[in-house]
C-alpha cells in the first residue's frame, strides 16, 4: 500500500492519473447536481410549516457540512504533510483552504436568506450554528491569509498546518461556547436548521446534494493541486513536456 501511495505521490504520475479521472468526476458531479436540484426543488413535497422556503436547505445544509468537512481534511492533510513530509498532502492542504472558504460563504449566505422569512432578520445573532459558521469563516481567512503572507513554500506549509490544527481543536470549543451562550437567553430552542421530521422524499435530495458537494470538492481540489504542482515543478522535464504539448495531460 505504501509503495502505491508513494508512487502516486510522485508528481508526474499524480498529474497523469488526475488528468484521466477529472473529466469523469466532473461529469458525475454535474449529473448529481442536476438530480439533486431536480429532486430538491420539484420532487420533494413542501414543508408543512415553512412551505417551499425550506428548499434552501438542499443548498445550505450540504454547504455547512462541507465547510466543516474541508477544514478537517485540511488539518489532517496538514499533519500528514508535516509528519511524513508528503509534498502532495501539503499542496492538498493549501489548495483546500479557498474551497472551504467558499463553502462557508455559501452556508452563511443561504443560512441568512433562509432565516429571513422565519426570523424576520437577515442575521439571527442568537443562532449558534450561524455564529460558529461565521467564526469558521474567519478561521479560513486566517489560514488563507497566512499561506499568502509567507513566501517560502515549505515554511508556509508548516505554518498553515500548525494553524489549521490549532483551529481544528478550537472549533468545537468555539461552537460549544456559542451554543452555551444561546441556551442562557432563549433556552434550548430547536434550531431552525434541524432537518424537519424527514420523510424519504425530503431526505433523498439532501443525500444527493451532499454527494454532489463532496464530488465538487474533489474536482476543484484536483484542479487546484494540479496547478500548484505545475508551478512548483516548472523546472522539471515532465512539466516542460506537458507545456510544450509533447504529451497532453
Amino acid at each position: 500500500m505504501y509503495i502505491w501511495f508513494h508512487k502516486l505521490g510522485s508528481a508526474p504520475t499524480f498529474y497523469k492519473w488526475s488528468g484521466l479521472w477529472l473529466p469523469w468526476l466532473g461529469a458525475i458531479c454535474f449529473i448529481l447536481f442536476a438530480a439533486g436540484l431536480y429532486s430538491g426543488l420539484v420532487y420533494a413535497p413542501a414543508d408543512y410549516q415553512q412551505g417551499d422556503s425550506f428548499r434552501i436547505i438542499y443548498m445550505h445544509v450540504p454547504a455547512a457540512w462541507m465547510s466543516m468537512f474541508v477544514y478537517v481534511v485540511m488539518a489532517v492533510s496538514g499533519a500528514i504533510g508535516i509528519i511524513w513530509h508528503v509534498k502532495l498532502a501539503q499542496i492538498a492542504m493549501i489548495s483546500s483552504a479557498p474551497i472551504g472558504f467558499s463553502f462557508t460563504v455559501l452556508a452563511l449566505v443561504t443560512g441568512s436568506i433562509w432565516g429571513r422569512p422565519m426570523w424576520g432578520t437577515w442575521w439571527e445573532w442568537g443562532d449558534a450554528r450561524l455564529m460558529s459558521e461565521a467564526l469558521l469563516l474567519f478561521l479560513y481567512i486566517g489560514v488563507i491569509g497566512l499561506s499568502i503572507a509567507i513566501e517560502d513554500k515549505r515554511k508556509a506549509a508548516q505554518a498553515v498546518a500548525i494553524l489549521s490544527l490549532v483551529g481544528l481543536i478550537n472549533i468545537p470549543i468555539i461552537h460549544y461556547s456559542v451554543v452555551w451562550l444561546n441556551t442562557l437567553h432563549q433556552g434550548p430552542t430547536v434550531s431552525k436548521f434541524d432537518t424537519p421530521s424527514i420523510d424519504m422524499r425530503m431526505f433523498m435530495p439532501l443525500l444527493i446534494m451532499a454527494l454532489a458537494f463532496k464530488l465538487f470538492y474533489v474536482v476543484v481540489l484536483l484542479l487546484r493541486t494540479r496547478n500548484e504542482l505545475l508551478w512548483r515543478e516548472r523546472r522539471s522535464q515532465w512539466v516542460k513536456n506537458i507545456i510544450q504539448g509533447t504529451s497532453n495531460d
Partner: protein
Amino acid sequence: MTEFLRFLEMGGYAGYVWSAYGISAVVLIITLLLPLLENKYIRKRIDRMLEEEQD
C-alpha cells in the same frame, strides 16, 4: 405553462429560494472557474519562461 409558473412562485417564497440558489450557483461557478483560469495563466507563464530559456 401555468404549472411551470406555479413552480417558479415557490409557494410565495420565490424571492428567497431563487436568490439563495442564484447566489449559490454564482459562488460554486466561481470556485470552479478560478482554478481553470489559473491553470491557463500558469501554463502561459511557464510557456513564456521556457521560451526565454531556449533563445
